[in-house]
């Protein structure tokens, strides 16, 4: 990074390089060829995380949920918090690629595929927890409507089947969207690869794409349609997740503001995760000219905006709790959270989600990769806290004081969380290595449009 903040913001939207198409293509394909030591090191590290996750999962499966810290009243705690957290992270991807596509935010082009990959992995991660968290996971398939000999069906008044449908749909659609976008670039990889083996493998995945004008026409249509479908989907998924809580009577859960509130939170943590991943990638693979400071700046601004949506939700919650005069709500929001035994969690969360993001008002912060990276981590931590406080915190202080109880996680709970992070990074690293993570064809297309315009 050489030039001064001022002119760096004025750099063109998608890319500032004078390479011709061939050079650009090779540039974008470089990561697939790189033999980066850092990559191997990280892969090993996250691999260990995967092992931890698998081991503790098996342990839980064999030993029972009792190995966790959960109890009555706090029947949901770490696992569900992790679930909501991962789903939330999964949101930014589709949001960036779909929503911003519809809004014709061209800058999205350089970051959307990374974001989408992040989404897929995160959603997959998230989907593991609800299953693992069942008392009898071997009967998880009972949530599916299938003609059983016991003639009993799932119960669709419950939010869990909604969840099931939402996550299934979200994962499938995100995948189709991601893969559709990927096909032309896979073709490029096919055609640029040296070894015949690689060419054949990518050849199969490229489905024989040959860039025919007629294909391009259908392709554009469907890609647009998918974007159009994915956009309401993004909104719906976390809304449905929020209903896991909102449809109950529990003070702290029972709230009509939850769907937008959760979506905002999801995008907040999602964009934070995009930064967490994008900044190092950009640095390691020298993509400053493709992922320009403008992108980073735009994402940082999104973060700021989301943090204010979140702040609004927080205030709303508190106000409503006070305004309803409902003693149970009031206790949870005005006493248990800010003053209760877990007050320190609450205030950490406030710091991470409310105060820290305000730094983004300063351009210098928005342009300092280091600061942004740190901030993005703080925010994700804060968002995990938020979910934990909502879930476990509310459960631990409900209607009858006699049944109040606190919650203490066990090492299994912690291992599963850490392990799932390892799993996430592991998958992401593989993605970086084997999939062109900057959309090549789109880049070239865009550049042509811009040049044409210019």
């Amino acid at each position, binding site marked *: 990074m050489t030039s001064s903040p001022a002119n760096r913001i004025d750099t063109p939207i998608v890319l500032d390089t004078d390479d011709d198409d061939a050079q650009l293509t090779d540039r974008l394909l470089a990561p697939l060829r790189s033999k980066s030591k850092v990559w191997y090191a990280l892969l090993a590290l996250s691999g260990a995380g995967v092992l931890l996750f698998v081991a503790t999962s098996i342990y839980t499966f064999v030993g*029972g*949920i009792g190995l966790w810290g959960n109890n009555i*009243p706090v029947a949901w705690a770490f696992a569900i918090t992790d679930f909501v957290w991962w789903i939330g992270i999964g949101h930014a991807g589709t949001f960036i690629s779909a929503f911003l596509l519809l809004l014709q935010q061209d800058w999205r082009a350089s970051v959307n595929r990374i974001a989408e990959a992040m989404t897929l992995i995160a959603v997959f991660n998230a989907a593991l927890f609800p299953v693992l968290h069942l*008392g009898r996971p071997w009967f998880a398939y009972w949530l599916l409507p299938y003609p059983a000999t016991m003639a009993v069906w799932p*119960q669709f008044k419950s939010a869990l089947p909604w969840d099931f449908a939402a996550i299934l749909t979200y994962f499938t659609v995100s995948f189709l969207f991601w893969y559709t976008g990927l096909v032309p670039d896979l073709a490029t990889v096919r055609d640029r690869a040296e070894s015949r083996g690689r060419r054949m493998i990518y050849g199969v995945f490229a489905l024989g794409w040959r860039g025919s004008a007629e294909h391009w026409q259908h392709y554009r249509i469907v890609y647009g349609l998918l974007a159009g479908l994915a956009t309401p989907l993004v909104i719906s998924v976390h809304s449905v997740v929020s209903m896991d809580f909102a449809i109950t009577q529990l003070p702290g859960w029972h709230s009509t503001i939850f769907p937008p509130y959760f979506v905002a939170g999801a995008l907040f943590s999602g964009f934070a995760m995009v930064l967490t991943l994008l900044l190092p990638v950009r640095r390691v693979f020298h993509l400053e000219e493709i992922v320009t400071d403008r992108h980073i700046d735009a994402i940082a601004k999104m973060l700021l905006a989301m943090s204010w949506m979140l702040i609004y939700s927080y205030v709303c919650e508190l106000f409503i709790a006070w305004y309803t005069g409902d*003693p149970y709500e009031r206790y949870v929001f005005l006493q248990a959270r800010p003053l209760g035994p877990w007050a320190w969690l609450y205030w950490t969360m406030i710091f991470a989600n409310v105060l820290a993001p305000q730094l983004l008002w300063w351009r210098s912060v928005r342009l300092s990769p280091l600061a942004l990276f740190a901030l993005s981590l703080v925010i994700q931590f804060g968002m995990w806290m938020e979910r934990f406080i909502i879930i476990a915190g509310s459960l631990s202080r*409900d*209607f*009858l004081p*006699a049944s109040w109880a606190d919650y203490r996680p066990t090492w299994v709970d912690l291992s599963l969380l850490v392990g799932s992070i390892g799993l996430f990074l592991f998958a992401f690293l593989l993605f970086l290595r084997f999939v062109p993570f900057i959309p090549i064809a789109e880049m070239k297309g865009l550049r042509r449009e811009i040049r044409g315009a210019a």
Partner: protein
Amino acid sequence: MTGSRQPLVHSAVDDAGSVTRRDFLRVIGSGVAVAGLGACIEPPRERILPYTARPPEITPGIATYYATTMTLGGFGTGLVVECREGRPTKVEGNQHHPASLGAAGVFEQASVLELYDPDRVRTPRQRGGVGGWDAFVSDFALTPASGGTEQGRGLHFLLEPTASPLTLSLIDRIRALHPAVGFTFYSPLAFTGAMEGARAAFGRPLQPIYDLSRAAVIVSLDADVLDAHPFCLRYARQFADGRRLRTRRDGMNRLYVVESAFTTTGGMADHRLALRAGDVADVATALLAATATPEEVRPLIPLLSRAQSEGPATSWVRAAAADLRAARGQSVVIAGAEQPAAVHAIANALNAILGSIGTTVRFIEPLLPAEAPEHALTALAAAIDARAVDKLIILGGNPSCTAPADLRFSERIRNVRSKAYLGLYHNETALDCSWVLPGLHYLESWGDARACDGTASFVQPLIRPLYDGRSVDEVLAVCGGLPTTSAHALVRELWSTQPDFQALWARSLERGVIENTASPPVSAALDWAGVLPVLAAERQRAARDSIEVTFRLDPKTLDGRFANNPWLQELPHPITKLTWGNAALLGPETAKRLGIETGDEVSIAFGGGRISIPAIVVPGHAESSITLPLGYGRSGEERVARDVGVNVYPIRTRGAPFIIPDAVVRGVKTGSSEPLATTQGHFTMEGRAIAREGTLAAYRADPRTIVPPHEIAPSLYEPVAQSGDQWAMTIDLSVCTGCSACVIACQAENNIPVVGREGVLKRREMHWLRIDRYYTGPAENPRVISQPMACQHCEKAPCEYVCPVNATVHSPDGLNEMVYNRCVGTRFCSNNCPYKVRRFNWFDYSFGVPAVLWMQRNPDVTVRERGVMEKCTYCVQRIRRAGIQAATERRALRDGEVVTACQQACPTRAITFGSLDDVDSEVSRSRRQERSYAVLGELGTEPRTRYLARIFNPSPDLTV
């Protein structure tokens, strides 16, 4: 009684066609079929092992019920025991028996688990020697009536005091044959204060029997009559009947309690005065002074004037006195068992003066030895030191653990040349003895017992002895060299003298009582001459500022005898909600003074002993007083009991068996004190109207001040079509004492597992029915209110609509059904249950236990697998059983035909259960009371369980 009650002309096992041991081993063989399991995997082809010749009284699949008697502290309580394919599975009360009146307490309920305890002594063993009864007999037994009076010198029996006619008659016969044989009676459960008090007041030891149903005013001088008394089930019922409100007009008795520790009786008090146990005598004296007219108590004037001037809590005394005077002949003053003779004497005096003798209190000849057990034991110790005892046979009890510390009795036992212990467990005493003999559980043995009003009843077995055991009576007979030695023969022999014996035998076995055997009342005339000296003796007492230490029998393990019973260990203490252990209870001020909080420890030194025990601060506990529950820190070989809690016997001496006026007490701030396993952490209601209460006056004036009307919001949904009976329950908080009998009853009926100390610490207790306990009233002198809390069977159940797999749904007769075998364990239902009454099987709690414990399981209730939810079902198995019964008889269910386990056990009948479909059913009527309300009704859950607000009856001259 639910189900079929067979005429018990033949007892369970005494003659042909009996349940042999093999029979129920068969039942275990087909046990998989008998006890339902949650497991869902198809096993290989099962075997069915039918009887070779089916015993006439056994019908597989149909429960039979037999009457028997459980003896505790020397007195019997009549019971009816449910029997499945020859296995006793559930203990219930016997309405014909005066000590039960149909109810059964925690100990009775839990005793069935004791029967199957895998830790029981199985075979007679001599330490490092041969085993077998014959060897024992040849070592210890006397030969019938040979060799004159000298024979038997050196042979000594140590028993627990008992009122059993059989045991007493055997002792007499042995004494007659061998005068030299020694007998000593010792048990920490035996109290002689009452008899001393009677001796003082009336000139001879007598035993008081109260009739609380006729008492308008009850004053308890540190007497926990509702929970810790051989007659507590009866007294609790009488007390409840005296304050049960059906309409606002109904009358209500008034209860005054002065006590140090919070007891269930204190919890029910209209006016409770928290005072050091040692100061109760003062209050008693003051009360006497304030109640009696000068001429009534002329001889005591000097004492009383002093008392009055220095009497504490004057207002309490004045109010009580006023009420006592107003209710002449309808009042009763009861002194606590642990209180000294003086207090009992005063109580007797007051009752005499108020003309209560003959109405609310009567006296009978004592049924237990009047000698204080500590003295008796001292004599035995002396005899041992004098080498006068070379054969010691200890029949039951656990003196090595429970004897006063300064007796160092354990060592003394070891000094005896040959000593034998007969009992259920390898406890401390067993370890001290050279011979350990398997005793019989009362469900295995023949015998008889007397209730504490003298009513006799038979003990009849429901199952052949599981192990090679003998009953106390049998061992007595054998060792005493008596001709007959089978308990069955002995008991028949004893009672065969009665006219028309065969009929009496049959009838008594069936009804569970022997009619007209209650002791006749004897006249008791007050004589001040005896009272004065005891009062004078009572004058010198501890200084005001010194901290007294009192010992209490633990409400769950008593003196430690039930410490190996997991149900009782996991039963929350009625006041502190502590499980799996004991703690020193003390008031907030005292705690401050010692610089400690709940969880820290107090270290107490007295009489050469020193103990250190975690403390629990209990608001409402008398200040400058510490209560130590006995019965923990057991060091025997019982696996459950061992090292649970702290043993406080080391500082309990002959001189101060109940109250230490001034011990050396030190507070110890333990930084890393292991937390106490309590099932409730928060004892205030945070101003939420959960357990509602109000005064009788307020209730009469305007019930809406206690239960506001129409608080249940109207529902937007169409009412769901209901058909047939609509089950519902009401719980009357006015009479619920929090004794917890219902909790154990539920546990026994519904195969509820225990989770152990770690489980409770993680807040994973499995009780379907818990008793929430809140403080109300002023902080300095709080009241407690107990609220049984189980599934409320909401008509708009929040748990149901969140279940993704239809595992919890609603039945047409209004039950919130929990289908274990459909549950996948999302626990969503629990999250959405406002009452948090759902329990989750975090581990496989039920399948790891020893097979012998499976025999207790109720075959009508599925044993739950790991990972499924469970909760109160309103005893659906009983509902369905009764329903099928009625349907096969082509008739409708009658009101009261279905009785839930909790309802059945409740001594005060606080629980009503029935169908709303019948508008005249008791439950419908109780629901129509103005004080009936739904907990959290404003949530619109429309619970089927309703509560009747607790009404208490304070004196108008006292502010509450």
